[in-house]
C-alpha cells in the first residue's frame, strides 16, 4: 500500500515538475528539476570518465538477458528469414537461392494483391473506429461513476475472447443468417441475408470483432484521462469553454502521448491480424477471398503450400511497410504529441 502511495506522490511530483513551462526562468522557488540535480551531483563526484565507463558496463549487465534473447531468439531467426526471402524453400530440402524472384512473383500474384487490399481496407476502417469509440467511451466513463471497476471489467471481457476458437461459432450466431443482428433488424422490418456469408460485408464483421475487443485501448485512454490536470478543466470552466473546446484544447493534447501509443500499436496489430481472420474466414479467406488477410495468405503459402521463401518475402515486405509507418508516426509526433508541457 505504502509503495503505491509513494508512487502516486512521486508521480505528482513529476507532473508538477514537468508542467513548469520551459520558457519562464527557473527561479529558486521552483522545485529542482532533474538536470539541475544531476549537474550538482556530477561536480561532487569528480572525474566523470571512470564512472561513465563503469556505468556503461553496468548498463550492458542490465541489458544482458534482453541482448541474449535478441541475438539468440530474435535476430538470428530474423536474419535467417531475410535470407530465406531470397530463396526457394519448401522446408524439407535445403533452400536454394533465387534472388529477387519471390518479390517479382508477389507483385504479379492476384491473391497477394487481394490480401494487400483486404488488409489495408481493414486497417483504414478499423483503427480509427477503435480509437474514436474507445476514446468516446473512456470520456463517458470518466465521470467518476460508481461501479466503475465493475463496468471496466465488463467492457474488457470481450477482448479476452477475441482469439479463442469459440469466437467463430459466436460470431456466426451474431452475423449469420439466422443471427442476432438480423433478428434485431427484423424487429424494424429490415430483412437481410447473412453478413458473414456475403463477400461484400464479411470484412466488416471482422472490423466489428476487432472493435468488440476494444477493451485494452479503452482502458489505456481511461488511465490517461485521469492524468490530465484538473486545474486546466477548472480554468476552462471558469472561462466558459464548452465541451468541444475542452475536448479539443485540453483533453486531446493532454492524452496525445497515449493516442500516439494506441495509434501505433493498434495499427501494427491490425496489419498483423491473423487468428480472427483465419477462424472466421474458414482458413482460406472465404467468402470469395474477402477475408484473405495478409497474414492468412502468408500462412497459407508458408505452411500449407510449403513455400517458405515466398512467405518470408511477404513477411519482410510487411515489416518494411510497418517500419516506414512507425517512422512516420515518430516524425509526425513532433507536431501533435505533447509530453506533459502546456499547449
Amino acid at each position, binding site marked *: 500500500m505504502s509503495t503505491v502511495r509513494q508512487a502516486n506522490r512521486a508521480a505528482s511530483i513529476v507532473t508538477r515538475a514537468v508542467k513548469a513551462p520551459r520558457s519562464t526562468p527557473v527561479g529558486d522557488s521552483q522545485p529542482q528539476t532533474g538536470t539541475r540535480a544531476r549537474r550538482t551531483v556530477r561536480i561532487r563526484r569528480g572525474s566523470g570518465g571512470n564512472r561513465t565507463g563503469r556505468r*556503461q558496463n553496468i548498463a550492458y549487465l542490465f541489458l544482458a538477458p534482453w541482448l541474449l534473447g535478441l541475438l539468440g531468439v530474435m535476430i*538470428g531467426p530474423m536474419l535467417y528469414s531475410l535470407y530465406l526471402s531470397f530463396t526457394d524453400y519448401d522446408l524439407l530440402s535445403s533452400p536454394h537461392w533465387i534472388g529477387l524472384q519471390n518479390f517479382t512473383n508477389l507483385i504479379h500474384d492476384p*491473391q497477394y494483391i487481394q490480401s494487400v487490399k483486404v488488409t489495408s481496407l481493414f486497417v483504414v476502417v478499423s483503427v480509427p473506429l477503435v480509437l474514436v469509440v474507445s476514446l468516446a467511451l473512456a470520456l463517458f466513463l470518466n465521470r467518476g461513476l460508481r461501479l466503475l471497476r465493475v463496468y471496466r471489467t465488463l467492457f474488457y471481457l470481450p477482448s479476452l475472447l477475441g482469439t479463442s476458437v469459440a469466437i467463430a461459432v459466436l460470431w*456466426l450466431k451474431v452475423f449469420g443468417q439466422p443471427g442476432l443482428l438480423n433478428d434485431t433488424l427484423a424487429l424494424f422490418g429490415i430483412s437481410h441475408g447473412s453478413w458473414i456469408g456475403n463477400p461484400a460485408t464479411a470484412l466488416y464483421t471482422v472490423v466489428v470483432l476487432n472493435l468488440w475487443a476494444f477493451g485494452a485501448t479503452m482502458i489505456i485512454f481511461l488511465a490517461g484521462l485521469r492524468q490530465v490536470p484538473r486545474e486546466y478543466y477548472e480554468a476552462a470552466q471558469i472561462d466558459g469553454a464548452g465541451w468541444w473546446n475542452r475536448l479539443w484544447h485540453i483533453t486531446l493534447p493532454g492524452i496525445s502521448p497515449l493516442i500516439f501509443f494506441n495509434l501505433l500499436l493498434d495499427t501494427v496489430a491490425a496489419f498483423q491480424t491473423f487468428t480472427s481472420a483465419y477462424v472466421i474466414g474458414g482458413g482460406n479467406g*472465404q467468402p*470469395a477471398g474477402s477475408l484473405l488477410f495478409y497474414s492468412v495468405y502468408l500462412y497459407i503459402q508458408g505452411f500449407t503450400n*510449403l513455400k517458405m521463401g515466398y512467405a518470408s518475402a511477404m513477411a519482410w515486405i510487411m515489416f518494411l511497410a510497418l517500419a516506414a509507418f512507425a517512422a512516420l508516426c515518430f516524425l509526425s509526433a513532433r507536431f501533435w504529441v505533447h509530453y506533459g508541457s502546456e499547449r
Partner: protein
Amino acid sequence: MKSAGTRRRRRSALLGMTALTAVAALATACSSPGGGSGSVALTKKPTGDITYFWWGDPTRNQKTDAVMNLFEKQYPHVKVNGEEEAFTQYWQKVTVQAAAHDLPCVTQTQSRELLTYTKDNVFMPLNSLISKGYINVSGMPKSILDSGKGEDGQIYMIPYGAAYDGFAYNKTMAQKAGLADPPQGYTWTWFQNWLQQARKKLPAGEYPIDQNGSDADIFISYAESYGYSLFNKSGQLGFPASLLERYWTMWVNWAKDGIALPENLAAQEGSTIQQSYLVQGKVMTEAEPGNQLYDGQIAADSSHVGTLAITTHPFGPKGLGNVVIPSGLSIPASCNNVSAAAAFINFFTNNAAGAKIYASDNGAVTDTNLLNQQLNDPSTNPVVKEELGTYKFIVNHHTPVVLYPPGFENVFETLYPQIFQKVVDGEESVNAGVQSLFAQAKSDLS
C-alpha cells in the same frame, strides 16, 4: 580505453550475431536425414519406445488408446506414447516437425499430403519392410495400396482407413417428397433430374442440395467420371478448361433455379458436421465424407431431421469417378526404432480385435477381410454399415489414384473456392473464372 572497449564490444557483438545466424542456417541445412534407421538391425521382436502421432476428435482418441493398449499387450517390451491434435493443428505441427526432421516414429499421413512430404527423405520407403514380411499388406486392394506411393513409385504410407467423398442425403426428406433413393450407378443427368423434381416437391425453406460448387473434391469425381485426371504426370492440371466450365455452369444454374442453397448461406456454413445444413434439415443432399455419416446421424437424431444415407458421386460417361482418400501410417527416415514402428503399423492395419474397436473411424478399414467382417458383424452400427457398403462398391470398381503435387493446396483449397464464389455471385463469368484459375494454377503448381 573507452574506445578500445567499445570496439571490442562491437566486434564481439557482430561475431555473436554471425555465429548465431550460422547456427540457425546450419541447423536447417545440416539437419539432413539419415537417422539411425540403416544401422539398427530389424527384428520381429522389437523393444523400446515409440510415439504415434495422429489427428482426431476425443472419440477417436479413446479408440486409438484402446488399440495401442492391445498392441502393448501383444508386444510387452514396446511402449507406445500417443500424441494427437485436431486436424488443422495437426498439419501445422507436422510441417514444422518435418522441417526439423523431428517427426515421431509412427506419423499419420494422408494420400493428399503425401507427395508434399515425401521429398528429401522425410519419410522412408517401406517396400523392403513389406517384402521382408514386417508389414503385411496382402489383404489390401492394389488400388488402395497404390495411393500410398510416392512419385518414385515406392510405398511411403501404409493405408489403414480409406475415406471417400460422397453425397449424403436425407432419406426421410426424400421419401416425404415422393422421391426414390439414388440407385447404384446413377448418372449426373439422373442426379440433375432428381434434384429438379425435389425442387418442385420440397417445402419452402428446404433446398434439394447445398451449394457445394466450391468443393473441389466433387469436381475430382466429375473429372474422373469423364475420363480426366485432376493432375497430369508433370504435376500440372490434367483436364481441359471446357470440362470445368461445364461443371461450374451446372452449379451456377442450380443456384439460379433455386435448386442449390443460396451462396451466402453456404459460405457461412460451419465446418463441423453438427453445423452442416444437412443435419439441420435445411437441405436434402450435401457433399460429405463417408466416415462422417456416423457423427452426422447422431447430430441429425438430436434435431430429429430423419435418417441419413450416403451414396457415391454420380457416374459419368466413363463410369464411376469417386476417388478414395486413404489415411495411413508412415515412418520418418529419422526414426530410431523402425522395428517397433513396423510392428505397430502391421498391428494397426491387420489385427482383427483392434479393427473391431476402431470400427473404421477414419475411413473404411483397408484390409478386405476385416472390411467384410465389419459388414457382416450384426453388432456394427447400421450407419457405419451403410458407409462401408458404399465404400465397398467404390473399391470394387477400378478406383483411380490421384497424385496430388505439392502446391495443390493453395490452388484447390483457397483459389478454387474463391473464384467459384465470385462466379456464382455473378461477379465474374464462368469463362473468365476458369481462365483465371488455370493461369494461377500454372504458376502455383510449377
